[in-house]
């Protein structure tokens, strides 16, 4: 019997689920090995007997916690799909300012109509078994993770930095081009796609385990970057972690 999988989304752009749909362009046989029983963005059918749940999006209001906990109860495996679920992602930028200011700025005196709290990754609410990093996820990596999960193996997510892949691509270093890049401390697996297109890494895949912070500081100092510039970049996808510092 094919394992039953389901896709869910919380606060997100649904771009990772879209990437899953796009992965069918080259891997249509994916449908031969799993049965998708729920995927609201793409299908009306709805089954509740899934074993593997892919969850996109951050949790940004208390009301959504119950739904996530229910998914956790049903699924044998919960996989965080993309930066919002994995790290909090861009949604957590709002955590850096007082919540009431943020709410009033967008909804004015009606802000109390719309429930919200500090954005967080799904792992802040339930136990997560695996994650697929990135904003958006990389479709080839998604396929690799699905294969590993189906074989009962640990998903092959790299824990070395983006610089490794960037060097293998023989790219000119962004710092040498006068840019700014989080590649030295960010988890690889994206094929260094942003530096390859001459844009510095923004850290969407999160920090590697034990990042070499001293070396990173030296690089930043050498290239004369301001604290403001560094903080803006560090908090684009990783504001949740940044807001936890000192807590």
């Amino acid at each position, binding site marked *: 019997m094919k394992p039953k999988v389901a896709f869910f989304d919380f606060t997100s752009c649904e771009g990772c689920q879209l990437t899953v749909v796009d992965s069918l*362009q080259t891997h249509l046989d994916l449908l031969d090995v799993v049965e998708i029983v729920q995927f609201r963005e793409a299908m009306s059918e709805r089954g509740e007997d899934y074993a593997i749940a892919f969850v996109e999006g951050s949790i940004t209001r208390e009301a959504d916690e119950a739904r996530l906990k229910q998914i956790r109860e049903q699924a044998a495996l919960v996989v965080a799909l993309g930066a919002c679920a994995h790290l909090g992602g861009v949604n957590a930028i709002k955590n850096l300012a007082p919540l009431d200011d943020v709410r009033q700025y967008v909804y004015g005196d009606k802000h109390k*109509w719309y429930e919200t709290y500090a954005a967080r990754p799904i792992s802040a609410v339930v136990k997560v078994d695996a994650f697929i990093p990135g904003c958006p996820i990389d479709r080839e990596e998604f396929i690799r993770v699905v294969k590993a999960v189906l074989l009962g193996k640990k998903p092959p997510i790299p824990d070395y930095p983006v610089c490794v892949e960037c060097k293998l691509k023989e790219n000119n270093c962004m710092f040498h081009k006068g840019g700014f890049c989080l590649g030295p401390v960010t988890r690889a697996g994206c094929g260094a796609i*942003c530096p390859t297109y001459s*844009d510095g890494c923004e850290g969407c895949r999160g920090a590697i385990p034990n990042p070499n912070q001293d070396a990173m500081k030296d690089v930043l100092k050498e290239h004369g970057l301001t604290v403001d510039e560094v903080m803006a970049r560090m908090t684009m996808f990783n504001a949740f972690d940044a807001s936890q510092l000192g807590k």
Partner: protein
Amino acid sequence: MAQNMKIDVHHVTRVEGHGNITVNAKNGVLEECRLDIVETPRFFEAMLRGRPYTDASHITSRICGICAVGHATASLRASETALGVELSEQAWLLRKLIFHGEILDSHVLHTYMLVAPDFFKVGSVIPLAGIAPDAVLRALRMKKLAGDLCAMVGGRHTHPIAMSVGGFTHLPTVDELKAMRARLIDARKDMDETVALFKTLPWPQFTRETEYVALSKPDEYAFIDGTITTTDGGRYHLNDYRKVTNEKCVEHSSSKHTAHKRESYMVGALARFNVNSKQLHPKAQEAADALGLKAVCTNPYLNSAAQVVEMVHSIEESVKICDELIARGIKKEDAYKFAGKGGTGVGACEVPRGLLFHNYEIGDDGKIVNANCIIPTGQNLANIEADMRALVPQILDQGQEKVTFALEMLVRAYDPCISCSVHFLDVKFV
């Protein structure tokens, strides 16, 4: 005969984001008819404040995974207008090229994968692959082409990398453009078959007069920049966008509603067609004839047909742009350097779902002081509800199941993007 009807579609499927349809009819009288947007609020405008203008397009492309190029474009145009940055001809051609790629990508997704299953009475594209494998394989092929086109210019479609204020950080090569041109030419066959398929579909017959709003330009079918133009004769400079949108909060929707002179207006492919159909590529005009589309068309279900017409247009325009870029050759251009002077600017474009505005105030330190984004789905919500109120009494005697189906199809026809508009869509009939 349903004297009483209560419909409660909790989370409409095959749309982007979370919305519910609620309908309540008692003794044949419609008491309640709403599209509740229950998506979580997102607060992007607040998140932009205090951040460098250079990050704005990368942050706001994350508003939407489907129209990421559109958000990036509107964001860049807002910054470029604020800072007085002029784009080179080459940069304009590339901006237009990647934009056509996204129009094609999104319209293939919507027409084939989200709308077509309704006509085959299946719940999704997966069973559709069993019934109409040729159509599904064609859709996947066309979507791959569109995605590859976006990737050639911007690095990838969902959350493009190379688009930056003043131009691009990476340029395609002439060889890449030539290969892409050849694939676009090949895609004409798939496009012809797409038109042939969609002209056989029995579109629901429902019309309601409303106002259609789109950008227009004197010399082309407008997607980026232009004058805000309406079928009621309104014409506005982009700086006056608030005179058209008049946003207001409504309690049942985390996305704000908008209205111009009437109670509501419509944006999107049908609105663009109704305002600018004469500027479509001749092949797209032929497709419109084949599909029975004629401006001004007031059947909202035909928004999907207008998308098919635009797919033809985008393929043909992409071929033209490739030709032009190949003839010119690709030249490396200097990156824009911030001169220490801020400003205020409006960026507008016609993303797949309709008219999108970004409006930024940038300080002399290069940081964003204020930001406002008005999203197409938000502008359509009031119009969808007005359609629902007109439609339900006409079909109330057909029973709950058919009414629910007709309403879900109606909401879907607008191709709503609820994450964008905030994040919302569920149908409830009471």
